[in-house]
């Protein structure tokens, strides 16, 4: 289908910002790699490169373990829970 793409140019925001490490405590660094329901966004949609996607994945897994990020979010919680 010839749907209009909102994000035509996909580039890695982390490469652009020259980020060499993603601290799981710094949620501002991986917020944009999470979906509204706190799922890790696939890199074909975010534009993250492989190296940074691996860093993002590790950081989010740690953040989930220590209850900074939810594992699963149902409809009700979507509006309730905020990262800040």
């Amino acid at each position, binding site marked *: 289908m010839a749907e209009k793409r909102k*994000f035509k140019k996909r580039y890695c925001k982390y490469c652009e*910002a020259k*980020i060499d490490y993603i601290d799981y405590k*710094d949620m*501002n*660094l991986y*917020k944009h790699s999470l979906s509204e*329901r706190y799922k890790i966004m696939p890199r074909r949609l975010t534009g993250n490169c492989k190296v940074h996607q691996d860093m993002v994945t590790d950081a989010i897994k740690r953040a989930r373990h220590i209850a900074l990020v939810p594992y699963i979010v149902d409809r009700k919680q979507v509006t309730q*829970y905020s990262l800040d």
Partner: protein
Amino acid sequence: MKNYEQIFILKPSLSADEITTKIASIKDVIINNGGAILGFKDIGMRRLAYQIDRQTRGYFGVFYFTIETNAILELERLFRVSEDVLKFMTITYESKIELKAFADMVDVANGKKIEEKRISGRLPREEDYDDERE
């Protein structure tokens, strides 16, 4: 000696004094097991992303230190038996990139460096991204 980060969540029902005492006792355990404290980050009381032991909030703290690997087992054992600790996580920093990040975090914890937040923005909605089907 390796570089470690120990994050822990204390029960929200503890008083301010009890929290101070508990944090001091964690520090003592690290030192008594041969560790050297490099920094402490006081994150404070915050909402948990999911309930732990029926709690919705917790007091977060992070210790940065060096210690012999064997001592970590004892540290974790004490965390596990402590009723005041809701959850904890130990992280090792070893690679060159990790060690640099670790040094930066220690500097931030000690107020020698300002935390840099370079990527931010709202949480995207899944609809923000069009699927890449043809």
